[in-house]
């Protein structure tokens, strides 16, 4: 764990690293640290850990239930319909009839996630493009560039996988009712036969939504598979480009 001894330049900046992570360093100290970080992977790693600690400290405050009417006042200020009525009509009462409505909401929200991240990544959703929809089902709710494939567990539809062009390209998926696995790994099979794991994510009660930047152009992706903790393929989606 200890590794090589710490160089003197790094040692001198250890204290300042903490203050930079906390956001309280002076301009001079901050500049010195940032200059050093450009060329020192060791201190960059240290700074990331210190920043995590600083971020975590904010989460130490106990949760407290806001005063009665907090939500109503908040939603009024935001110009959104009061939540109580929405809850009666939708989310909370959805237990017995949520199937398609729930999946649609999930898909719409994940599509929104795609859009937001794609905008951040400079994909340019607004440009004209030729979507390639590989699903037999309509790709309603997804942005136009999405190449959408149905995620299947055997013959059962358990979600959708959408890929987006760009550099990097992005992959997003929604998963619904995929059994009891709490964590799944996403593995891609490329058209040239190579396979690669691109990340893992948690499912809650078989549901989840997740996205990842692709290390290859999306046109190279043939299949996206979700693999359970024991290595079994739980679901897969095939693309055609």
């Amino acid at each position, binding site marked *: 764990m200890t590794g090589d001894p710490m160089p003197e330049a790094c040692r001198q900046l250890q*204290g300042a690293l*903490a*203050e930079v992570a*906390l*956001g*309280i360093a*002076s301009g001079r100290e901050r500049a010195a640290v940032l200059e050093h970080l450009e060329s020192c992977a060791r201190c960059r790693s*240290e700074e990331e*850990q*210190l920043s995590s*600690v*600083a*971020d975590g*400290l*904010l*989460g*130490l*405050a*106990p*949760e*407290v*239930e*806001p005063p009665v009417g*907090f*939500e109503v*006042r*908040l*939603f009024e*200020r*935001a110009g*959104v319909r009061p*939540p109580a009525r*929405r*809850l009666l009509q*939708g*989310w*909370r009462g*959805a*237990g017995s009839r*949520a199937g398609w*409505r*729930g999946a649609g*909401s*999930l898909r*719409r*929200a994940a599509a*929104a*996630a*795609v*859009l*937001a*991240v794609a*905008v*951040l990544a400079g994909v340019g959703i607004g440009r004209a493009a030729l979507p390639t929809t590989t699903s037999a089902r309509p790709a309603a709710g997804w942005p136009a560039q999405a190449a959408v494939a149905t995620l299947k567990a055997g013959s059962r539809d358990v979600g959708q996988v959408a890929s987006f062009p760009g550099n990097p390209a992005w992959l997003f998926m929604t998963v*619904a*009712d995929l059994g009891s696995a709490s964590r799944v790994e996403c593995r891609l099979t490329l058209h040239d036969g190579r396979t690669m794991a691109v990340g893992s994510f948690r499912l809650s*009660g078989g*549901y989840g*939504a997740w*996205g990842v930047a692709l290390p290859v152009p999306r046109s190279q992706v043939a299949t996206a598979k979700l693999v359970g903790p024991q290595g079994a393929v739980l679901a897969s989606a095939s693309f055609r480009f």
Partner: protein
Amino acid sequence: MARANAATELSDDALLAGLALGDEGCAVTFTRRYQRRVFGLALAMTGDQGTAEDVAQEALLRVWRHAPVFDPRRASVATWVLTITRNLAIDALRLRRATPIDPGDFADLGLVATTSGPEEAAMAADGMPGLRAALATLPVEQRRALVLAAVYGRTAAEIGQHEGIPVGTAKTRVRTAMMKVRAAMAERTFGLEDEQ
């Protein structure tokens, strides 16, 4: 059961993206997921219910407004939301020229904080497991200095003034506390890896 509340199953990032597009369902779910944490932080910092509500509401409104520019590569949603809350609480305290609650009290509150359910517990555990325990091992004066810096955004000079100690001593307390907590966290991480 598993199909119920599809929106509540969404990740923070997906909810925020829904917010960015004006999805009311995402707004409701996001608010319900975060309002207790946001209000809790605001109340812990300001010590006043009315001010805390103002801060919490403004923080959530800003999250909604700025959701389209949130960059998940820079910070987690929780960190972003709580940082907005913290900054607004600091502004409110400065505006009222109010004295923040005792940083020792904040740390003590944090040390005994409990989460309200398994979902929140999982979220907290995902964030910084063991942070409370690490903080608890610090000498009181170091913990106070660290809370003043991390939560209240106080510089070493301001901490020195607040605590009645030289700036150099304040710097040392903050830096030492930070390094100790980081080391404890790293040790915990390595320990967990060894167990697996």
